[in-house]
């Protein structure tokens, strides 16, 4: 049989044969040390919070006014607050609602904002304009007015805080997602999807959004800490999580009046936890950015 092809570099051949063991290739996505550290830190904190009943005999809401403001002892490892409640117990239980609200108030806007941004970036015409104008409007509306007023309308508590934050914080996700979509839209694979005859909705949800989601997800990591900060701030104005549900914002603010008396521990203890979470999320954010970075 005579060679009729364009001769090609034969030497390549040895290297070219890809030997893949099994049917699925081992796709070792390199999970960086950052992601591991961050996840371990966060899981530890989460574990403590979930296993709270096992780690403390105290009811975090149980007051014992006669045992208020005790220092650390074997009975109360972190002491008690001004109601005589065990601080360690409050710290453990306090994370439940805070983290739940903070995470949900990131997740929801992340999903909504990403979809809206993708739509705004992918299509031309009136709908994107409306979305972006709305985003402009919300972002020029003072955040705390909206939150505070919503908390008044809906009654204070985790649900209101969640709704209020969500109502505002979809905007950055929309902007991020739109920006990414605008870039992606010019990439040829979107054109190639369209050329395959896929409808716009199909392309949007199966190709655009999965490819742009990573940026928003990475941003969301730092947003969780921001949300914790908002909960703390609302507590400062007495609009946070409703007592007696233990939460960190309330704990910090309970400690606030003691600052003038030179007692810092009440505020410092929950602050340290939030800083640790912030650190963990920062690791996770960077780690995720590396993992989610779509290799070209």
């Amino acid at each position, binding site marked *: 049989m005579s060679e009729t092809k364009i001769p090609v570099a034969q030497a390549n051949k040895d290297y070219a044969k890809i030997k893949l063991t099994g049917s699925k290739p081992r796709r070792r996505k390199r999970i960086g040390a950052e992601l591991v550290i961050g996840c371990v830190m966060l899981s530890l904190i989460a574990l403590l919070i979930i296993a709270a009943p096992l780690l403390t005999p105290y009811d975090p809401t149980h007051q014992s006014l006669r045992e208020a403001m005790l220092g650390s002892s074997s009975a109360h490892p972190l002491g008690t607050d001004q109601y005589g409640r065990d601080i360690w117990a409050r710290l453990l239980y306090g994370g439940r609602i805070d983290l739940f609200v903070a995470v949900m108030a990131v997740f929801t806007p992340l999903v909504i904002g990403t979809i809206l941004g993708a739509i705004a970036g992918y299509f031309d015409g009136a709908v994107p304009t409306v979305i972006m*104008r709305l985003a*402009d*409007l919300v*972002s*020029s*509306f*003072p*955040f*705390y*007015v*909206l939150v*505070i*007023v*919503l908390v*008044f*309308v809906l009654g204070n508590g985790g649900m209101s805080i969640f709704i209020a934050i969500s109502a505002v914080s979809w905007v*950055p996700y929309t902007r991020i997602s739109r920006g990414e979509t605008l870039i992606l839209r010019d990439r040829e694979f979107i054109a190639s999807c369209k050329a395959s005859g896929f409808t716009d909705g199909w392309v949007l949800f199966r190709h655009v959004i999965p490819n742009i989601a990573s940026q928003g997800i990475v941003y969301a990591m*730092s947003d969780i*800490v*921001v949300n*914790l*900060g908002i909960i*703390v*701030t609302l507590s*400062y*104005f007495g609009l946070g999580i409703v007592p007696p549900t233990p939460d960190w914002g309330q704990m*910090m*603010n309970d400690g*606030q009046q003691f*600052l*003038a008396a030179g007692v810092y521990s009440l*505020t410092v203890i929950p*602050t*340290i936890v*939030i*800083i*640790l*979470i*912030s*650190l963990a999320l*920062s*690791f996770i954010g960077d780690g995720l950015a590396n993992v989610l970075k779509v290799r070209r």
Partner: protein
Amino acid sequence: MSGSKWLYIGKRLLLLIPTVWGCATLTFFLLKLTPGDPAVQALGPKASKQALEALRESWGLNDPLWQQYLRFLGDLCTGNLGTSYSAKAPVVELIATRLPVTLIIMVLAAVFAVIIALPLSVWVATSGSRVVTEFVRILNAVAQGWPTFFLGAILLQIFAIQLGWFPIGSVSGGVDVAALILPSFAVAVSIAPIIIRSLTQSLQDSVNSEYVNFGRAKGLSGRAVLFNYALRNGSISAVSVLGIQVGFLVGGTLVVENVFAVPGLGQLLMDSVMKRDLPVVQTLTVVFGIIVVLVYLITDLVYGALDPRAAKRG
């Protein structure tokens, strides 16, 4: 500045109209949704029911909502911003004394944030050292997790009480900038982490970019490359992040104003919401809307000045 630039600015300023209308409308209905009677606030808890009713009538609070809304829009269009229910003074007057405070805090905070963020970001981006990266990461986490009221208390304790460098809640006539330094710094600390993150990211990108390599290949010194190539390019994206953060600050400095006893718009806003002082809240949201639009415009102009490609992108 070319003619087209003015045209652009003009167009952007036109955007103020829908923004103002949107902000005002949103506030109007939100406040109407909230329980609480402004008349009670105005007359105090001891006032009689008849007095309350009479006051509500005279303020038109008993009219149908749409009438109130139309009247409100009419007032807004004619620039009649009304009189504060609680301070019983013209809203404009209340806001005018506080506006400079807030503006100065915003500007100073932006400046401080840059002063904090820039060296740290450059340090991380250029050193390439793990230790530095982690050190700055911890700084960021601490800045993010530290509640503002606590930071404020500590700053006051150290710089106002121990060292006596800055006044607390100055009572001098006019605006005492010295009293605004600590609050601005506290604000800067709270926004610095986000700026550091984005600046580090973009600096790292630009430090590793091909144009920086080419700059070096041409024989430029490290400093020249850092400043003219890496930093200028790297700061472009940070400018918009800073702009958004500063925009967010408008009215978001409530805690700082409370803790540092500086009378800014945030505090007025909080008080007015609490007091159901509709005319003040409405005017404030409009003012905030305008400031935010202007901040974004300035951001975009700075962005455009830094990045010649922006003009092309439109």
